[in-house]
C-alpha cells in the first residue's frame, strides 16, 4: 500500500512537469480558430485584432518595439542616386549577368571557387588594416595567420584551408567599418555607377580599401581594372539570381536596396 502511494506521488510530480508546456494550451480551440481563418480565404480577422479599444498591452506592443524604429539614412541626393540605381540595374542585366552566366557555363565550380579563394586571400590587407583600426588585434592576427597558411599550403591562396573552421573565419572588416566603429555616421546615402550602394562614410572607406588592394598597384591601369572586373564576374557567378529575387520581393527596389545596405553595414560594424 505504501509503495503504491509513493509511486502515485512520483507520477503526479512527473505529470506536473508536463503542465508547464506552453504549446499544450488549454485554449486549444482558440488556436484552432486562428488556424482555420488563416487557411480559408477570405481571411477573416477576429475582433480582438482590429478593435482599437482592446487591451493596450498586447495590441500596442508593436509600437513599443524600439528595435523597430526605422534606421533612416539621409538621402538628399535621391534623384541623382536613383539615376545611378537604374544605370546599375541595366548594367547588371545587360553586361554583368550575361558575362557571369557565360563564364559559369565554361568554368567548373572548383575553378571558380579557387579564383574566389585567391582574391579573398589577396585582399587580406584590407581586412587586416580594418581590424587594426578598430583595435581588434586578435582578429587581425587570425587574418594574418590565414594569409600565411593559405598562401603556402593553399598554393598562393587558391586553396582556402581555413574556410571550414568557424573560429578561423572572423567577420570580414574593412576601412569603412572602422569608421563606423569610431562612431562616424553614414552621412548621406550614395549610389555609385558600377560600385553600387554606399554612403559618404563608406565611400571614404572604399578609397582606403582601394589603396590597400594589391591589384591597384598593377601597371598599366587597365590591367588592374581588368583583374578587378574578373574578380567581380567570378563572384557574381555564384550569386546569379540573388539580385533578381530581391527585386521580385520588393515593392520599391531602390528603397529596399538602400535599407538593406544600411542594415547590413550596421550589422557588420557591430560584429
Amino acid at each position: 500500500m505504501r509503495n503504491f502511494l509513493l509511486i502515485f506521488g512520483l507520477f503526479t510530480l512527473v505529470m506536473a512537469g508536463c503542465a508547464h508546456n506552453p504549446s499544450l494550451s488549454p485554449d486549444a480551440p482558440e488556436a484552432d480558430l486562428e488556424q482555420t481563418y488563416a487557411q480559408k480565404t477570405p481571411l477573416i480577422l477576429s475582433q480582438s485584432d482590429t478593435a482599437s479599444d482592446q487591451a493596450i498591452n498586447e495590441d500596442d506592443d508593436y509600437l513599443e518595439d524600439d528595435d523597430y524604429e526605422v534606421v533612416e539614412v539621409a538621402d538628399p541626393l535621391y534623384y541623382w542616386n536613383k539615376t545611378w540605381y537604374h544605370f546599375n540595374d541595366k548594367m547588371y542585366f545587360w553586361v554583368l549577368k550575361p558575362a557571369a552566366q557565360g563564364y559559369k557555363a565554361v568554368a567548373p565550380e572548383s575553378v571558380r571557387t579557387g579564383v574566389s579563394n585567391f582574391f579573398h586571400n589577396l585582399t587580406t590587407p584590407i581586412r587586416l588594416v580594418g581590424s587594426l583600426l578598430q583595435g581588434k588585434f586578435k582578429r587581425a592576427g587570425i587574418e594574418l595567420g590565414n594569409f600565411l597558411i593559405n598562401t603556402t599550403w593553399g598554393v598562393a591562396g587558391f586553396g582556402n584551408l581555413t574556410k571550414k573552421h568557424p573560429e578561423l573565419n572572423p567577420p570580414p572588416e574593412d576601412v569603412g567599418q572602422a569608421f563606423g566603429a569610431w562612431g562616424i555616421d553614414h552621412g548621406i546615402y550614395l549610389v555609385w555607377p558600377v560600385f553600387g550602394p554606399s554612403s559618404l562614410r563608406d565611400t571614404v572607406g572604399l578609397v582606403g580599401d582601394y589603396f590597400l588592394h594589391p591589384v591597384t598597384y598593377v601597371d598599366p591601369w587597365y590591367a588592374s581594372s581588368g583583374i578587378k572586373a574578373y574578380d567581380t564576374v567570378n563572384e557574381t557567378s555564384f550569386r546569379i539570381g540573388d539580385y533578381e529575387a530581391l527585386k521580385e520581393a520588393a515593392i520599391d527596389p531602390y528603397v529596399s536596396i538602400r535599407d538593406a545596405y544600411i542594415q547590413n553595414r550596421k550589422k557588420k560594424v557591430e560584429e
Partner: protein
Amino acid sequence: MKLKLIWICLAILVLMPFQVYAGGPMEIAEIEVKKILAVLGDPSLAGETGATAKKEKLRAIFDNIFDYVELSKRTLGRNWKKLDTQQRDEFIKLYRKLLDSVYMERLLAYKDEKVIFSKESMISEKKAEVFSNIDTGDKQIPINYRLILKKNQWKVYDVIIEGVSMVKNYRSQFNEILSKNKPEELLNILREKTRAKE
C-alpha cells in the same frame, strides 16, 4: 528498500526545476523548418506535376508559423493607425499573399544546403530570437527568426537574413510610399504586385 525509494524521490525533486519547455521557440522553429525541408526534398513531389502540391503544402506550413497580423502591424508601425478596419483587413491579406509568393520562390530554388540551428535567446517574456545558419558549401548565411508567444503558440514575426530584417526592410519601403500617398495608393500598389505574381 526504503532508502532507495527516498533517493528516487529526492532525485525527482532535484530534477524538477530543469524541466524543458517542450515546444519552446527554437524547437518550434526547428520543427517547422524540418517540415519545409521535407516537402522540398520529397521525391514524389518533384517536377512540374508535383509543383502545385508542393506549393499547397508549403502554404499550409506558412500559415502555421507566420503571424500575419503581427507581421502587418510591425511592418506598418505607426502607419498602422492610418488605415481603417477595411483597409487593414485588405492589407493583411495582400501582405500575406506577397510574402507567401516571395518565400515560395526562394524556397523552390533550394537545393540541399544544410540548415543548422545554433541557439535561442529571449528578447522579452513573450518574444524570442532563434539563430540558424544555412551552409551553402562555400559560405554560411546567418538567418534569424523572431517569434512571439500569442495565445500560447510561438509564431514568427520577423526573419533576419545576414543582418537585414524583413520587417524593417518592408517598413522602410511602405514608409516611403505612405509619406507621399494615401493608404489606398499603398493597397493599389500591393494589389498590382500580387496580381502580377499569380
